């Protein structure tokens, strides 16, 4: 009740400074969130909490509104109804494409995020080097974006997202465009970085294996309109691998459910 009252208190989409508030029990809270584009309802009555330090993957068929939901949490768009509360300040967001600025070097991309966060100039260079080290790209500071491989670009993009020092990291299919081996490697890196930084992650994907490989909790979104269909707690310890048998087992179950969701539309249409 108290947290609900707290959520009411904030204006929609407000990202107040973390210090000014008593610590709430969540990194993000969505309550009765709906979103329509014109007459088309995309999201319907979404309720979701992401606990501090939790890793949640959001799973759903193509076009079910996953990106729309992340944009709402990121404050890039407003919900048609409902409340979104992100107490830890502006969330970081990583896109499917790297979205790095091609007019800056890899290091300068990160330094720009640090600058906009308010870090003094004298500390930016060193902090950018540290973040590049975190994604194992020490020495890539002066590289231009077009000189980097797809995997390296996504790692720089991850470093830039981490540079915001936000307590919530939103990821919108960040590895979907990568080849399988590179994706595997980045899964391992992300798991390691998540454990090191204790950041909360809301990770969107339509790849069931990826969802189970990474998450503590998998949330399945139905399509048209997007509703929360089911949730699974993933108990197996990290580090996991995408080819582990328990990952595979749960993936089969979730895939069945996802197929059921998709089939349901075939019958309705």
């Amino acid at each position, binding site marked *: 009740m108290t947290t609900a009252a707290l959520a009411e208190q904030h204006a929609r989409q407000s990202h107040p400074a973390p210090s000014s508030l008593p610590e709430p029990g969540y990194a993000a809270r969505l309550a009765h969130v709906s979103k329509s584009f014109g007459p088309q309802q995309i999201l319907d009555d979404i309720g979701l909490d992401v606990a501090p330090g939790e890793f949640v993957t959001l799973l759903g068929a193509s076009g079910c509104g996953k990106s729309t939901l992340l944009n709402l949490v990121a404050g890039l768009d407003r919900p048609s109804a409902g409340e979104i509360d992100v107490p830890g300040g502006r969330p970081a*967001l990583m896109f499917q494409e790297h979205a790095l600025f091609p*007019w800056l070097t890899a290091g300068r991309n990160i330094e720009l995020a640090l600058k906009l966060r308010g870090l003094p100039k004298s500390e930016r260079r060193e902090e950018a080097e540290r973040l590049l080290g975190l994604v194992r790209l020490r020495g890539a500071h002066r590289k231009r974006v077009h000189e980097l491989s797809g*995997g390296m670009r996504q790692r720089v993009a991850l470093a830039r997202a981490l540079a915001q020092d936000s307590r919530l990291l939103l990821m919108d299919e960040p590895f979907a465009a990568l080849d*399988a081996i590179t994706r595997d490697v980045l899964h391992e890196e992300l798991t390691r970085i998540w454990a090191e930084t204790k950041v909360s992650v809301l990770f969107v994907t339509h790849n069931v294996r990826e969802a189970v490989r990474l998450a503590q909790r998998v949330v399945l979104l139905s399509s048209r309109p997007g509703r929360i269909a089911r949730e699974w707690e993933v108990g197996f310890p990290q580090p996991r691998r*995408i080819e582990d048998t328990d990952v595979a087992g749960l993936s089969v179950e979730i895939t069945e459910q996802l197929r059921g969701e998709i089939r349901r539309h075939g019958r309705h249409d």
Partner: protein
Amino acid sequence: MAGTTEDRRDGERTAAGPGGGSGADDAAGEDGLAGLEAGLDALDTRTTTRQPLGRLLREKVLPPVLAVVLVLGLWQLAFELHLKPDYQLPSPKMVWDALAEEWYKGTILGVVWQSVSRGALGFLVALVVGTPLGLLVARVKPVRAAIGPILSGLQSLPSVAWVPAAIIWFGLTDATIYTVVLLGAVPSIANGLVAGVDRIDPLHLRAGKVIGATGLRGLWHVLLPAALPGYIAGLKQGWAFSWRSLMAAELIATSPELGSGLGQLLETGRSYQDMPLVLGAILLILMVGIAIELLIFAPVERRVLRQRGLLR
């Protein structure tokens, strides 16, 4: 769905063949991951290298030189064949002599400088006016609806059409010349910036917002640098329009108070029926245009495009 089936196949392979290729990585642990990553990075890294000087000369300098030599040869040939009387079609040598004569009079540098400084000043003022105008049109919807089409229309209106109006407003003064130059260059610069802003990848704007580049900081750190290639193209065109508007204005608005620029030199040649001088003046006008392009705009543009990997 494709991803799921692909992953399932991976899974089966691992189950069927334990101790396969992936086993080595497991044993190596963290080092194995870092090593794998380093391998992937090394396999897929591009570096852009500059062309060697010799090849640059052969591919970029030789062709235009050959083209000029060819044109001069054809011109000389036409002269030798007496296609037209000498006073209508002088030889390259006669044009050269006419220019040399101007040079020995000691006035030619002043003439060129008069025009170039006017063109540069007009261009800079056009830059100062056109940039905010372009930003307004690009980012403020009602402004775009109101003056966007007019701005594009103005770009296709030959600015020489403004000369009579400007003379009626300002008489034979510098103000007339600068008015014509501005009306020629401002629309190009503004439209270039609008095109540059329109071509920005919306993803970059959203990424900027996410990392906190909003308002003026968004303008400075994201919008302007993202629009730079289009903006530079607009500046290039803006200079071209400044220069040709200036020549039109100088050619028509001739008076002693206005001093003597390249346009006036052209008009002098015409009034004396001095074809070598006319052709010489045309060549000078052309050469100034080429020089400004090669010395100022081309290097800036190349640099910007190379930084972004848009140039091989």
